[in-house]
Structures are given as C-alpha cells and as structure tokens.
C-alpha cells in the first residue's frame, strides 16, 4: 500500500520539489502551507509521514510538532523537519518537541527519499 506523506512548507516551490521527488518514489503526497493548515490536514486524514519546514507564518513547524504530539492520533507518526547545517540549536528544540528526524538543506531527491524510507521502514 502506498504510504501517504504530508509536506508542510510556506514556499510553494519547495512543496512542488518535495511533491515531485516523493511522487516519483511512489508515495502519495498532500501539501499544507503552514503549521495550522498542517494540523487541519492531519486531523482530516491519516498520514504515514509528515515533512515540515520550521520557519513558517501563522504557525511555525516547532509549534506544529508540539501540537501534533499532544494529539493521540498523531502519536507515533514520524515527523521529519527541514533544517540547515547551522541550525543545531533549532534541531535540538525540534527533537525535544517530538520530531523523529531531520533533513538538512540543501538536499537532493535521493536524500529525501532515503530519509523517507528510513523513517517509514519501507
């Protein structure tokens, strides 16, 4: 069965790039433009993996992760955040908030798919 992935990023081009790479790898992809929208989408349907940016308007990725981990139905859903190499402090905060892993920018499609397979186990 195809794994479904929710990508949360305020940049449409990043969302498009994520969608192309993940769709080519056989995943089903849904998109959200910020953390609040991501939570709404996650409430509406179940996802196997959530990939989120951290700096976003309306609700940032960190708050979204914290909110999701408080929702019983989102407990255990892998959440991978996008970060830069210099963001070590933010990485630690996101891990403490309940993130599963991270993907360092810039990344190529192979890295993205490899990380998705790693956390999904398929």
């Amino acid at each position, binding site marked *: 069965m195809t794994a479904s992935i929710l990508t949360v990023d305020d940049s449409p*081009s990043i969302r*498009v*790039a994520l969608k*192309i*790479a993940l769709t080519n790898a056989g995943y089903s992809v849904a998109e959200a433009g910020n953390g609040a929208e991501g939570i709404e989408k996650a409430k509406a349907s179940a996802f196997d993996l959530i990939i989120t940016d951290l700096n976003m308007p309306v609700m940032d990725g960190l708050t979204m992760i914290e909110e999701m*981990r408080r929702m019983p139905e989102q*407990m*255990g*859903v*892998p*959440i991978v955040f996008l970060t830069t190499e210099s963001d070590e402090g933010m990485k630690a905060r996101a*891990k403490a908030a*309940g*993130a*599963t*892993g*991270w993907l360092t920018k*810039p*990344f*190529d*499609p*192979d*890295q993205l798919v490899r990380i998705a397979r*790693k*956390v*999904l*186990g398929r």
Partner: protein
Amino acid sequence: MSEEAIAVFQIEARENLELIEQGLLDLLERPEDRDLVDAVFRGLHTLKGSGSMFGFDALAGFTHHCETAFDRVRKGEVAATTDLVSAVLAARDHMRCLMEDPSGDHGAAGDVLLADLERAVREADGAACAVPAVVMQTWRIRFDLPANAFKNGTNPQALLAEIRDLGEALVIADTSRVPPLAQIDPTDHYLAWDVTLHSDQGRSAIEDVFIFVMDDMNLSIEALDETAAPETVVDATPVLPAEAAPVPVAPVQPAQTVANDPIDSSAAKTGQGRRERAGSGRTPRRTDGSRRRTGHRPVAPEPDRHSASSDTALRSVSEEIERLSGELRDTMMVLRMVPVATCFPASAVWSTIWPARRARSSSCRPTANAPRSTRPSSNGWPIHWSTSSATRPTTGWNRPGIASPPASRRPAAFACRRISRAARWSSPSATTAAVSIANGFAPRRRPRV
C-alpha cells in the same frame, strides 16, 4: 514543471556555478584548504540534486561524475592536483551549457571532458586507484531506545531492517526490562537489542542507522574478530549487563536463517520462538475446533503465547480471554440460527419447498425438440439447458453461458435434503436453521424425545 520554477532553478544554478568556479580557482592556489574542497563539493552536490529535481537530467548525470571525483578529494583519497581542478573547471563550463541549453547535443563534448577528469583522478590517485579489497568484519551492536521512541515516531523494526541491510545479522531481543502487564505503558519502549552483524560496512555506516536517535539512546558498537563468521560468535557471551537476562540462543542456529526471517524479532519474541518459526516449519495450532464449527478460516494463526512469557498472571488472563472469545463465537453462531420449526411445521416447510424443486427440475429438462446448446460451459459442467428461450428462464443456473450443475448438486436441492433430514431429527420444538443449513452447516443433532 512550470516555466517559473525552471527560471528560479536556472538563477540558482548560475549562482551555484559561480561559487564552484570561484572555489576551484582558489583551490589552485590553496589545494590543501579543506573548507574550499567542502564548498566545491557542496556546490556540485546541490547542482546535481536540484538539476535532477527540475528535469535537467543531462546536467545531473554529468555533474554526478564531478561530484564523485570531488568526494574522493574530500575524503582525502586523492589530492586536489592542478590537473584535477582544471578538469573540473572545464567541466563546470560544460555544466553551464547543459543548464542553459538542456535540449542541445552535448554528448560528445561531455565524454571528452569526463575522460580528462578520469585521467586526472587516476594520476592524482596513483596506485591507490585500485579497488580496495572488501574486508568483512563482525560487529557486536547493543542498543536500547529512549522510552518515548514510539511516541516520537521511531520504529525499531525499521532500525533492525536497516541493520540487516548492512549484512548478515543475528538479532536478539532483551526483554528483561519489560515490566509486568499491569505496569506497562503501551506507548513506552522497554526492549533492548543485541545484534551480531557480519558486514563489509564500517562503523560509520552502523552509526548512520541510529543517526536520529543517537543522542538519546545507549549504543555500543564493538568490533569482534574480523575473520569470525556470525555463526561462530553466537555462543559468545552477549554484551549485556550482568543483571540483564538475555534470551537464550541455540548455538546451532544458522545466522542466515535468522537474518532473512521476515518475521521481525522486535515484537519481543524469544530466540526460541524465532527458531521454531524459521526452522521447524510448524503449522498454526488450532485446538478449540472453531474452524470446524464456523466453517471459516481462522483470522490469524494462534501465536505461541505461552512460550513468550513465564508470567502466570499473564497466562491466566490470556486463557480467560481465549475462553470468553470462544463463548462469544458460539453465541454468534446461535444468533445466526433462524428457528424454522417453530414458525412452520416441518411438513409445511417440505411442502413449500418440494413443489418449487419439482418445478425447477422440470424446467431444467431439455425439451424434446429443442436443440441442445453446444457452447462450452464455463464451469466444467455440461450444459443441459435448452436453447429455446421459451423454456429457458434468464436467471439462476440457466443464465446464458453458465452451465448447470447436476440437479443433486444445486444449492436449493442440497438445502432441501438437509432440511428434510433436519426435520426428521427435530422435534416440533427444536430449532432448525434454514439459513444455516443452506449455508452448509449441519444442525446439532438432538435425540428424539
């Protein structure tokens, strides 16, 4: 891909190519500068990745070779010689052509540049260009995960699968930290793992498996004898704390069998349990007769629950659940029964069904002067139906193209015989289920009153 997205990519790629060029020019002056090497590698890596993402496959493919060459420089395998840097500089100009004119024919020029690059790498590498021999190494890996691993989306099965991808792995679950049932928080993680891995991969590859949880977990990676195969180290004392109670492992168990066992050991199976699954080929045990009563295949094989735990309280709960589920199943079977004898006397049932059977039987007979169908039947039974539409109903067994079974094997006739027999067995007050009989279930035989 929209034109707007491609335009954004091209702007980004031009900036990237300029950075690569600047880095390469600086490297000609300072070939030992590791930061410059890293910066050039990152630029090539990004260009390759984004090119592939935006459909510039020729650019991505060509850049991949340069990236690979520079990866060797980055790892210190080859030096950043003038020839090598010059070859990448020339390749950088070709990358720009591939980016600006992706549909052009640049194949021949690219091949020449790649040949130059390959020669430069070979010269920089010298004798070290030979393919290094694969060295197999045995590793003892012990790890446990933080208690909140499940909550945060970490899947131990995925980690174990990644380890198995590295080589032959013998995985043993340490269940000593699993508390009694009443104290278990189902969202917490209590298991630890002891893995013997025989692989040609190094320590960094093993550490990469745990990259997301390494800061929060206990991980020990120990190199064992390089020549030892996993089978020979199974007998070795596991790397476990003295107070831990590792699950015993049989010394004769071949590691390959365990490594390829699709049933993961992460469900706290014992080593013994895994051996049974992998080696003995045992079939699921079903002693409660539920399959016979229900006529359905059991949903899942009954697990060997009792061997997994010596906890008598857990065993008692398990048996109670089993007993209750058996009663529930029996109750459901009773609910499926529709009393017939109480609604209709047995003779009435028979008199209702018998004419219908006779009518159907007579309508099934071919007419004397109607030709028989010669079409092949789809189910193997001979076609007895007349081709005359006047005598052929359009539903049921005699639909066009569907062959009729012998009358004695048709469901209605079958049910009639069963009902008839049930009526003989039953007293007027006994309940007999027409629905269940029609479904093929034998009514419980009752003694005559």
